[in-house]
């Protein structure tokens, strides 16, 4: 078990390191360059040179990279175009997106897993068809459009919920949830559709497994057979799917925050791009990539806890 986790952690470290190289090179490939973004209209070569010198941009790329990474490890991602520390900006924005992601994963997995279990138990009946149709619609509907439709219905027409904006939970817990409800539903829909399909198919497999037949033969009530024996084993695959969906969740957060005007991490990414703020951009993308890798590492840990076979043999996906 320890060896397995160590190997996983080592692989994750390599991925984070390679990602940082990709981010660094990618940002250097952007047109204009940081000096022009900082100098604005002032294209005087001497000024550009001075700015380049001040930020160490006249040094060779590997030197710049090492400097950037060694600072990044210590939590210093440099100053953005407005001379604010990038790390601080990111840290203030992340909780907002984390709350949004948490609520949508909560909603998505509650709806998705419940619908998947019901569909598998009632296979071929009306409930199954309803759940399958729901998943198909959830996969096909463009989520940002769903957001616009919900704004039209619940904010413009019915005035039940605010159309956009954000209130922090500490200031006004109820207002915060009111503002977060629609975004969380929008972001959670796709996840719930994917999870419903995954839960249904792995439940169908486990419901046909020998241990379920044994449990039934022992005379255990169906509730315990489904809940304890079949569902537990299906949840293993479901955890992996949640980890794999994280990339989609981050992408989804960018556009959801844009539509509902939520000042989170996703909106920060778009701001960095639109304002051509290179230091900010490379910080944001690095944090996104590292976050993705870390969450998938955690998923691997949970997976190995749920699946004893991996712990024993040290193998597995």
């Amino acid at each position, binding site marked *: 078990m320890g060896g397995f986790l160590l190997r996983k952690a080592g692989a994750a470290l390599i*991925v984070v390191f390679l990602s940082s190289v990709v981010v660094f090179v990618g940002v250097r490939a952007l047109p204009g360059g940081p000096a022009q973004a900082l100098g604005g209209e002032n294209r005087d070569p001497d000024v550009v040179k001075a700015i380049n010198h001040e930020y160490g941009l006249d040094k060779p790329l590997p030197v710049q990279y090492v400097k950037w990474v060694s600072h990044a490890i210590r939590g210093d991602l440099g100053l953005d175009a407005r001379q604010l520390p990038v790390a601080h900006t990111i840290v203030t924005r992340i909780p907002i997106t984390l709350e949004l992601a948490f609520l949508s994963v909560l909603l998505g997995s509650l709806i998705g897993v419940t619908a998947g279990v019901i569909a598998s138990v009632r296979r071929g009946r009306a409930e199954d068809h309803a759940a399958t149709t729901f998943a198909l619609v959830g996969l*096909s509907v*463009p989520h*940002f459009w769903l957001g*616009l439709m919900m*704004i*039209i219905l619940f904010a413009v027409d019915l005035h039940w919920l605010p159309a956009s904006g954000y209130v922090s939970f500490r200031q006004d817990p109820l207002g915060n949830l009111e503002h977060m409800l629609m975004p969380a539903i929008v972001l959670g829909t796709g996840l719930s559709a994917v999870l419903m399909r995954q839960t249904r198919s792995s439940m169908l497999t486990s419901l046909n497994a020998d241990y379920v037949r044994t449990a039934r033969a022992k005379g255990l009530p169906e509730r315990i057979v489904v809940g304890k024996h079949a569902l537990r084993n299906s949840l293993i695959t479901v955890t992996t799917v949640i980890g794999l969906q994280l*990339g989609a969740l981050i992408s989804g957060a960018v556009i959801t925050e844009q539509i509902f005007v939520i000042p989170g991490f996703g909106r920060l990414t778009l701001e960095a*791009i639109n304002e051509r703020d290179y230091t900010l951009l490379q910080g944001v993308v690095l944090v996104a990539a590292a976050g*993705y890798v870390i969450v998938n590492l955690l998923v691997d840990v949970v997976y190995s806890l749920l699946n004893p076979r991996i712990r024993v043999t040290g193998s597995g996906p």
Partner: protein
Amino acid sequence: MSYADTSPAVMSPRARRRRIVRRRFMRRPLAVAGFAVATAFVLAAILAPWIAPYGPGETDFNALLAPPSAQHLLGTDELGRDVLSRIIWGSRASIEAGVMATLLAMLVAVPIGILGGYYRGKVDAVIARVTDVLLAFPFLIVAVGLAAILGPSLTNATIALGIGAAPALIRIARGETLALREEDYVRAAVANGASDGRIILRHVLPNMSSTLIVQATVLIPAAIIGEAVLSFLGLGVQPPTPSWGVMLADAQSYLSEAPRLAIFPGLAIFFCSLSFNLLGDGLRDALDPRTRR
């Protein structure tokens, strides 16, 4: 259908299998409906100049934000442009992005995946790490970055969507190759002294084609939605070129006065991606030998 029943006494295994698949597909009404609607969208994209009642940029200043009428079946937008015509013209960007991004992803990912799965060892380890790195970048971030580097346009959005879809596809092609390598006919070919290239082209690639077809029908609707997202954010199709995403972005300013401007283009995206998803589900069931009937 009568000719289908007069089956020749001897059929090649492939022809017989194709017939079985077609028959199983035709037995699924939802899959057939998906196929029909998807075809309709593709035809609309190709035939836009002939079937759209108005040009995509044609303005009618006597009918600004007009509700649906006989002249304008779905009404007009804030510049008096016909919404139905713009949806028909907009299907071009969506279909182009959907198909081209999927083709690009296939061209990039399948050879890499096969290489990794076939040769295994160090090549595979390197490919697996690179795929992990690529997967760590959410597609929208990649797309946003590419749009920033190359400038926003439909082509660049398509490239971003294709590259974004590649890592997952690499994993699928790799997994398929790993499994196919162990098949008896591949071992037989190896024993016969067939070259690697011949084994890959004659045995591995054809046998993963059904998986790839199903993946394509999953990737196309994802890329269609992706294109709409990027155009909505101003990173894809640039106005005045019509695109469903651009129409939705414009509609945001009129959500209370003319909500239909946001409803219709979204419905187009929804039905277009739904049809490809239905088609894909039907194909997967029809191609999977494990599902009965």
